[in-house]
């Protein structure tokens, strides 16, 4: 039984970590740039933008 548990746990843990990391990297690389064309042309330097 123990012989079965270890590889299953390893696969699950490793798989989850790998998928999560990959998704995070993809999300980060494909997210909108901090400065959009709209803000670049603005004469005011913005302190930020709220989420809505």
């Amino acid at each position, binding site marked *: 039984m123990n012989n079965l548990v270890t590889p299953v746990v390893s696969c699950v843990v490793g798989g989850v*970590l790998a998928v999560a990391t990959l*998704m995070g*990297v993809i999300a980060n690389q494909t997210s909108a740039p901090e400065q959009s064309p709209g803000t670049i042309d603005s004469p005011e330097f913005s302190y930020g933008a709220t989420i809505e």
Partner: protein
Amino acid sequence: MQDRTWGAAARWLPTCWALVLAVLMLGGALGRGFVLTYDMVWVPDLSLGLDALGLGTALPRAVPSDAVVAVLDEVVPGEVLQKLVLLGALVSAGSGAAALCGRGTVARLVAATVFVWNPFVVERLAIGHWPVLVGYGVLPWVLLAGATWRRTGWLPARLAVLLLVGSLSATTGLVTAVAVVAAAAERSRRRWVGLAVLVGAANAPWVASGLLHAGEATSSAVGADVFAPSSREGLLPAPLHFLTLGGVWNAESVPGSRTGVLAVGLTILLVLLAAVALRRGWSSVPVLLRTPLLVCWSVGMVLVVATWALPDATGRLAGTVPGGGLLRDGARMLALAAPLTAVLAGRGADAVVRVFPDTASRTMVALGCVLAPVALMPDAALGLSGRLAAVDYTASYEGAVEALATLPPGDVVLLPFQSYRAPSWNGGRPVLDPLGRYLGRHVVVEDQLVVDGETLAGEDPRAAEVRDGLAAPTPEARAEALRAAGVRLVVVEDVDRVEVPEVAGDTVGEYGELRVVDVGPGAAPPQPTGAWVTAMAVAWAAWASLLLVGMVRLRRARRSNFAQ
């Protein structure tokens, strides 16, 4: 012998792990140069001016942090000091969270990971709130020292120093005060007096300066709405994302991974671990820390939820009660919720690991729990994916400083008269105009902020005077208005696509994109009254006496330990 060696290694393991996490998260921030992001502005040599001492006309937002940096960078170069501060805060945070957790290597490592690698730390790093992070770093140690005080009845020597380090700004001073009261309070008048003296002395500079500015210490009511904790982070609505310590108002400070399914994963993971911990791991949390952890979490969450749910009430408070603006960016109070969150994650992971029958499976699950927060927010690595890359100031800055040293005394105004810049040499990242701190002279800076294209009113009457002066119709009239406001020099920065009003005067130097204009002698800059100086001297004396007492007692305690 082997057990003893492993015991020593296990004791240091969370600190080493916190160091690894801190280095991984800071990444390029630890390279050559300065990290400049939003409110985080460090310069080679910060001067100890009126504003740093709380005697300027602006609200004391950087009191006492700027004064502390101005003194310390006389010993350690500003560039190195910034890295030490950021690294030290994160390592202290991680090792402190591990110490809060009680026994068990897995629990301690998971607590360290959750306390360091979470949205609160990432978002505050991105927006540059370094005093908040320093306070966050000492928060677990304040809880531990407070609990020791309650257990032994003796004030631990380290608590005085921890309170000072944890009170480098107004908000973080409040957080630290809540933590120490939660940990050390008991039904004894003597204890409450002791707590009041300690907390009062640690926060004396900004409190005294805030009271002196009470006339203009109300903030824009609109700002309370803008700076309220965010009502949504990606897929997560508030207050669910508060549970994972996310909620900064500024969408530009939120890492990409928080806007997708990974944030949901982190929430589920932390909630599950907390549920397991409350059922099977709570008894392993040190008894004296249980109530303080719960109190801190409750106070933090109530304040965050209140400022999110009732922005109008917060706005009225900020707009009418001096100092009410402290609650504007309510998500900063999430720091109080972090210790319990990390401890529950640690204890929960420890309980889950024990379910598995064999060592190999336990090891795998433990590794999974320790690494999961990192995997669920991978873009926090390598300096928040490059957002914290250190940069060098341009040579023109140094040229302007050298020029100003030879010019007649007087205050300086920076044009464009705006709070923030996004210099190309800083990768276009927004930052509070660094020249204001770099020049080494008193600079009147714009304190209006632009958020979502809307201008939020400032509080500094001197900034308003300069703003009005620059709105005059002719260059000569602007120069006259600046002279009347006590301004002698104008540093004009050539910024792409931004027009600045011309001011009449002699151009006394050009250094790259900077041009220094002397508008001539005028009114003397306003100076603090004798009463203000006396009040602030008393406040700083109280602050310094706490530092002195803390250091002396710490030294005695160390000697005593060494003798034993």
